[in-house]
């Protein structure tokens, strides 16, 4: 597992006119580029721009309809992931893809089918060799992890290091330099964790070429020498990092300028009853004695570290988690026996952070998902009216620019950002939406989709909903919120009315820890 230095001047990988369609939807249209050994290249594009499809072609999950791939000067055809791994292509996936029940060493060895040659004899495992190989690989990327640790014992950054070790270990079978693909390796990481990872990324180029996919443009600018931009399945730009700035990249990705508006913070009318008021709400071991109120048209952002109890609080407000004591008042009226069906009926909406598991029904069409909770005119009593449903869904699709614009496709097949737009629309479709609870609504979204979702949040506010937002970042909380609540260890440590106060992120941080 020594860094490959066999530079023969040939590109590590070269794509020529790659095409891929799904039905009538052309996901990748004639993409060509090549990477030289030692290059770190950024790949950016909105959700649905074709990045994921392109990566799946490179990793052998999909086969291209047309075009050719060359690795180290040789034309290759990837029929399955095995072929791609054998050619020396390793991936660090966006959603972690480790076997959580196995050890670090096994996870590294399981890639590549190498497990069946070097570390095993006639299918019998040589554990010592596996541990030794893993140690060597981990050391090569500068990690001190114990190869015998079971992965479910590791934190996120360490897991990501294992993924990287596995990705670079693929090069053992390759003739020349290898390619490491990092598919949004930082999208769920915290900032200090990201820094650790970025340091490792810079070392990776010793192994060959690196494709770095990220939604964070600053990260791309920092780590990559060259940037490829995709839009609507096409490669629209192939630039040196020194030649562009973030604004230009954004424009290339989206096709128009950023529409960021100056944020204004709405103040409270003291005579008005709060849309939702929480009094001394307690859930043992999660949060205690939480009191606050949100008025119609206002947005309250709740910030806090992991374990602050804000996620549980949000779920409890939606009736998804038990409340031990305290009360919830909707428009001044106390609610008894708070359960999800009652919450939905009372006009509460909830966008969960676990979108794939709790937010959507993947096997239902987009239009079915959209009208599932609040059917509006698409249902009369128990009877559904498909035509009305399609109209409602189509209107939302147009309004939110959901891509692909096909309401009858299964929602599970849409990209994350577009799924989130549909989840938002599901709640916004209710004319009586009073309270909207958003648990990390922007998690894993690209800038374009994030902008659309934020615009919808603001619109919901304007239309009179009280919004409770668990933001991903403090900046997001300060920009979107009219009020910011800080939680620590299950308690509210401070509350800022942004119409009057102007706390800095540092002020918030101090009260979080």
């Amino acid at each position, binding site marked *: 597992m020594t860094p490959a230095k066999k530079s023969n001047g040939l590109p590590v990988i070269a794509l020529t006119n790659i095409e891929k369609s799904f039905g009538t939807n052309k996901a990748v249209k004639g993409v060509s580029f090549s990477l030289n050994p030692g290059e770190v290249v950024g790949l950016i594009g909105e959700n649905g721009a074709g990045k994921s499809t392109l990566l799946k072609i490179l*990793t052998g*999950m999909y086969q291209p309809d047309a075009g050719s791939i060359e690795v180290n000067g040789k034309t290759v055809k990837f029929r*399955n*992931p*095995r072929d*791609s*791994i*054998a050619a020396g292509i390793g*991936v660090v*996936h966006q959603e972690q*893809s*480790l*076997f*959580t*029940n*196995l050890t670090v060493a*096994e996870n590294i060895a*399981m*890639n*590549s*089918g190498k*497990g*069946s040659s070097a570390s*095993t004899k006639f*299918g*019998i*495992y040589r*554990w010592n060799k596996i541990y030794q190989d893993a140690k060597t690989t981990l050391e090569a990327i500068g990690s001190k992890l*114990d190869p015998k*640790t079971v992965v479910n*014992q*590791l*934190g*996120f950054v*360490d897991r990501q290091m294992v993924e990287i070790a596995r990705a670079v270990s693929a090069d053992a079978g390759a003739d020349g330099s290898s390619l490491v693909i990092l598919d949004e390796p930082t999208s769920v990481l*915290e*900032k*200090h964790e990201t820094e650790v990872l970025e340091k490792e990324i810079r070392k990776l180029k010793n192994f060959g070429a690196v494709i770095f996919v990220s939604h964070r443009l600053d990260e791309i600018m920092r780590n990559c020498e060259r940037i490829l931009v995709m839009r609507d399945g096409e490669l629209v730009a192939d630039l040196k990092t020194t030649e562009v700035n973030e604004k230009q990249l954004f424009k290339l990705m989206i096709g128009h300028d950023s529409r960021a508006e100056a944020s204004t913070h709405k103040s409270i009318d003291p005579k008005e009853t709060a849309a939702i008021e929480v009094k001394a709400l307690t859930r043992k071991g999660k949060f205690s004695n939480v009191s606050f109120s949100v008025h119609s048209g206002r947005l309250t952002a709740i*910030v*806090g*570290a*992991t*374990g602050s109890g804000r996620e549980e609080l949000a779920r409890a407000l939606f009736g998804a988690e038990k409340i031990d004591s305290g009360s919830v008042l909707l428009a001044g009226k106390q609610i008894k026996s708070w359960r999800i069906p009652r919450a939905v009926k009372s006009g509460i909406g909830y966008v969960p952070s*676990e979108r794939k*598991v*709790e937010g959507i029904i993947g096997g239902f069409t987009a239009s079915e998902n959209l009208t599932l909770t609040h059917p509006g005119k698409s249902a009369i009593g128990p009877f559904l009216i498909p035509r009305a449903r399609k109209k409602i869904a189509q209107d939302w699709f147009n309004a939110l620019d959901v891509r692909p614009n096909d309401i009858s496709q299964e929602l599970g097949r849409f990209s994350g950002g577009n799924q989130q737009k549909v989840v938002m629309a599901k709640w916004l479709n209710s004319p009586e939406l009073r309270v909207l609870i958003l648990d990390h609504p922007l998690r894993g979204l690209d800038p374009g989709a994030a902008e659309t979702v934020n615009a919808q949040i603001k619109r919901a506010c304007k239309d009179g909903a009280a919004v409770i937002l668990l*933001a*991903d*970042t*403090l*900046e997001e*909380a300060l920009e979107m919120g009219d009020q910011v609540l800080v939680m620590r260890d299950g308690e509210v440590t401070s509350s800022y009315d942004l119409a009057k106060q102007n706390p800095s*992120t540092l002020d*918030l*941080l101090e009260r*979080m*820890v």
Partner: protein
Amino acid sequence: MSSTATNDKPRNRVTAGQPNNVIAGFIKRNVEVISISASILVLATIFSILNPRFATIENLQNLLNQAGLPLIIAVGATFVILIGSIDLSVEGVMSASGMAFVLMSANSRGGTDFGFWAYVVAIGLAATLGFFSGVLFTKVKVPSFIVTLGMWYVGLGIATVLFGTDTMPFLTNDDLSTWASQQNLGMPNNFLLGLLVAILGALLLRFTSFGRVTLAVGNNEEIARGNGLKVNRNKVTIFVLAGAISGIAGIVATIQLGAVNPTIAAGNLFIALPAVVIGGTSLAGGKGSMLGTVLGVILLTTLTNGLTLADVSPNFKTAVSGAILILAIVITAWSQRDRLRISK
């Protein structure tokens, strides 16, 4: 700056080399084995009080004799459950192999005694049935639950056809028909065979690519495919292995009885499958151990044996066994509850 950036607490980071953590760590890693062993002791104590005959050497040997057959089956079932599937065909496959075995050995109906080849054909037949289950499940993507439910009756049908309308065939070789209950090392032969199968199973799981890929597939099939592992081949192999083990169990069952009829295997799955789950193998796949399975079988056999000795009316015994079984599973599965896991 992220809102959670200041959480410096490492998440469950492993801290090695702290002596006071060693014992706690050992208990935590082996919590299932320890709790099942404790349960067995508690049950045994209760049954000894209810009926002093429970704790006699004779009864304990009898208990192990009862545990032999379910143990063999449970080893195969552990592999199947480790990939998140289920094999309900066991009893049918056992009947088919048992019937084939007796009719090819020296038996009361006459015919040729094929000796060693009787074993080969019986186990081969069972493995073939397992192969078909595996292929239908993997290639046609029919849920294993349905495929093996069908294969159960296919096996039963084969046994019925072989049985024909003649009298019940019994083994005429006395050495053979008394083998199962004979003792070695103070334990009945059929239990020793069960232990041997379990040990081989444990080695297979720990020291072969087949075993490790099984755990990987059980943990996450999609990731396994993405890593270039041969998922389909692994799944089919598991069903062939489980079939072959059912075949061995079928032979042991006929030897125990000294004769064979199509329903010879009835009731065995009821002990074996729950034993695997109680032994800590997750029905979702990816997690489990052979040691747990062995203990699970002993626990449930103790229960059945003890209830009989405790003079629970046979009329009630069936229902009581069922109720206790559900309770045991609930207790075992309690720690695995997850808000995001949906059971269907």
